[in-house]
């Protein structure tokens, strides 16, 4: 099978696209045919994969722009004198049920359901208006005709179908579509709300960790996700490095968890910044639903749902930063929220780092690789070269020293095709799509 081949070595660039603004989220749909990106300016750009064609076999697998639309606009909350950013925090696709595509996109306060549909026919031959749309004078009509549909150039239009608003006091960090395809949840710093996709004027609060006295606040929710198969189960991660698994059948308000995943802190690593680097920035179920993956500042961890006391596997993403935490605190990099993704078979995990590096870890072979997403290294069809960070001593020719890393070039958002070895990597304004050479 394709994805068992050691693809860690052979990757080629399919697409290198420049967005108008910093990309803030990347997500494949459930078939991998579409890839959506959201940016800081509130725009969503959807790419579609080229269909296999006998005429142009070499173009198979390339992604082209399919639709672009403005999802969110900046808003102003007059009551609190707060500006609400239009930045798209997350996009999640709904499973496809008909010819149209549906996705949820969210900023800090409002979730929207967008319908993306194709139009390749248009009605012609109206009686009451002419071809340009101008209303005709009824007295000039002498004959009646039945309008007919005629082919037209393909047009892709996006329309907002639902707006889910006014349910979050704090900033939304996650949305997750339930496997029942009827409900979804939205998560902010202190609360998780459950919505029905059809109903916008009501949501149910299922988790609330806001203390009665805000001065007692010690932890916030950082991410949440539904189980891929069990529609009653979800997890949420916290700023203290713990993950709670909840069962909605147990009670209406899931403040009491069914499972609590936390690894005891290593006392030898204690520093001023221990709490910051243990804060979980992303949590993802494996496709199988058997494992959880969490990302904190320096590591990625894989948890077995049946073992709460410690993770199954821990991978060091960039441990050489451990001695630089003070500088990273000063320049705010320590607050960067890296995401993590599984490949289709749950055998490889991927996450981003600095200097436009991203890392892949093969869970079976225990091999890992560091790759770079940059224009210079990513000519189309070029093979990516593994990179190495030199942590001390003599620096080899191709290595880069820790002090030379560019911390303004960070890869926070990546996505993996659900079944093939195709990855999307967002590096600031640039989107890269890489593919296994064997494909």
């Amino acid at each position: 099978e394709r994805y068992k081949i050691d693809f860690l070595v052979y990757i080629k660039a399919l697409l290198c696209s420049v967005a108008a603004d910093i990309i803030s989220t990347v997500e494949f749909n459930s078939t991998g045919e579409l890839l959506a990106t959201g940016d800081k300016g509130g725009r969503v750009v959807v790419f579609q994969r080229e269909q296999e064609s006998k005429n142009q076999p070499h173009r198979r697998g390339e992604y082209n722009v399919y639709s672009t639309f403005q999802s969110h606009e900046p808003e102003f909350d007059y009551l609190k004198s707060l500006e609400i950013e239009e930045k798209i925090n997350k996009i999640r696709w709904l499973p496809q049920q008909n010819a149209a595509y549906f996705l949820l996109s969210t900023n800090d306060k409002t979730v929207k359901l967008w319908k993306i549909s194709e139009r390749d026919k248009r009605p012609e031959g109206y009686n009451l208006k002419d071809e340009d749309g101008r209303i005709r004078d009824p007295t000039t009509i002498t004959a009646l005709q039945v309008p007919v549909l005629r082919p037209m150039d393909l047009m892709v239009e996006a329309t907002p179908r639902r707006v889910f608003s006014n349910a979050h006091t704090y900033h939304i960090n996650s949305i997750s579509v339930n496997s029942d395809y009827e409900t979804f949840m939205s998560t902010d710093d202190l609360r998780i709300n459950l919505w029905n996709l059809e109903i916008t004027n009501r949501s149910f609060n299922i988790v609330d960790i806001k203390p009665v006295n805000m001065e007692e606040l010690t932890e916030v929710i950082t991410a949440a996700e539904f189980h891929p198969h069990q529609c009653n189960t979800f997890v949420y991660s916290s700023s203290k490095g713990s993950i709670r698994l909840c069962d909605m059948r147990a009670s209406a308000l899931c403040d009491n968890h069914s499972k609590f995943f936390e690894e005891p802190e290593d006392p030898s690593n204690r520093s001023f910044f221990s709490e910051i680097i243990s804060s979980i920035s992303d949590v993802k179920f494996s496709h199988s639903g058997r494992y959880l993956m969490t990302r904190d500042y320096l590591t990625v961890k894989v948890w077995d749902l049946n073992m709460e006391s410690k993770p199954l596997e821990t991978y060091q993403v960039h441990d050489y930063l451990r001695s630089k935490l003070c500088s990273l605190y000063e320049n705010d990099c320590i607050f960067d929220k890296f995401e993590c993704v599984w490949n289709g078979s749950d055998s490889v995990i991927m996450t981003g780092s600095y200097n436009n590096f991203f890392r892949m870890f093969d869970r079976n072979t225990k091999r890992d690789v560091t790759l770079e997403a940059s224009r210079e290294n990513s000519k189309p069809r070029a093979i990516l070269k593994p990179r190495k960070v030199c942590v001390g001593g003599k620096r080899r020719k191709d290595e880069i020293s820790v002090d030379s890393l560019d911390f303004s070039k960070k890869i926070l958002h990546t996505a993996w095709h659900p079944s093939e070895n195709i990855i999307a990597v967002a590096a600031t304004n640039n989107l890269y799509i890489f593919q296994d050479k064997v494909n």
Partner: protein
Amino acid sequence: MEYKVEAHRIMSISLGKIYNSRVQRGGIKLHKNLLVSLVLRSARQVYLSDYYSGACLNAQSEREGNEWDITDSEREKFPPSATECDRVESTEETQPNEQPEKEREYRENDDEVKSDQVDCTSTLQEQNQNSSLDSVAKVSSETPPESITEPKESPSDSAVAERDSTPEANGESHQPPKTHVCSNRKRSAEESESGDSPQKRTKVASSNAKEDEEAEEMDTSNVSNLITIFGSSFSGLLSKESAKPEAEAEDSGQICCDQMLKNLNPWSTAIVAF
């Protein structure tokens, strides 16, 4: 002393971040401010504990005497693990009676207790990890390791400085036992600190409770309350600052943060407004 300088620097940076978050587009980010306030708290504890660990050797000052009282009552909770601890304690203690000490402990500002305990934690690590430069650096974030690692030398620069500046009956012979006293105190206190920290945090916060904003507003007043607490604690520190040259040494980029230590009153006014 370098880690004290580092702690001060981190505090200044943290306060600057909290201050800047007010003008950030999109409103105050609760998560980030919570993390910054945790760092601020840790740095402040290290910063203050350095002051108190040195001051605890001086039995003349009442406040410093109270530190030992607290220590003794804390120690009562856990079996003492070294005889030097008892020996030195008995020569230093002015109030052997435990009960009033406990009352005094709860009546006093909880910050002192907490700072004492966390100091113990950090110093304990310094002593345990004198072979690992990286680990020491972690505690004090890039502090040169040579200054802290060797217990055979004077236990800490601050302790030496305090002894020099406050003429005392404690001679050089007390130096090694002082180290052991500190480590015992800290070893036992560390367990209590790690176990009780959530309650301690609550105590610190609620001991200076201010009125919250509207419940459903994005409630970041907890951050400003913490700063107010820190501001009130610094008032005690300020009076002793003149004896320490380090206070003037480190200059952060944020002018408002520097003014905090030099001139307390305008800052606390600004914090309350915040």
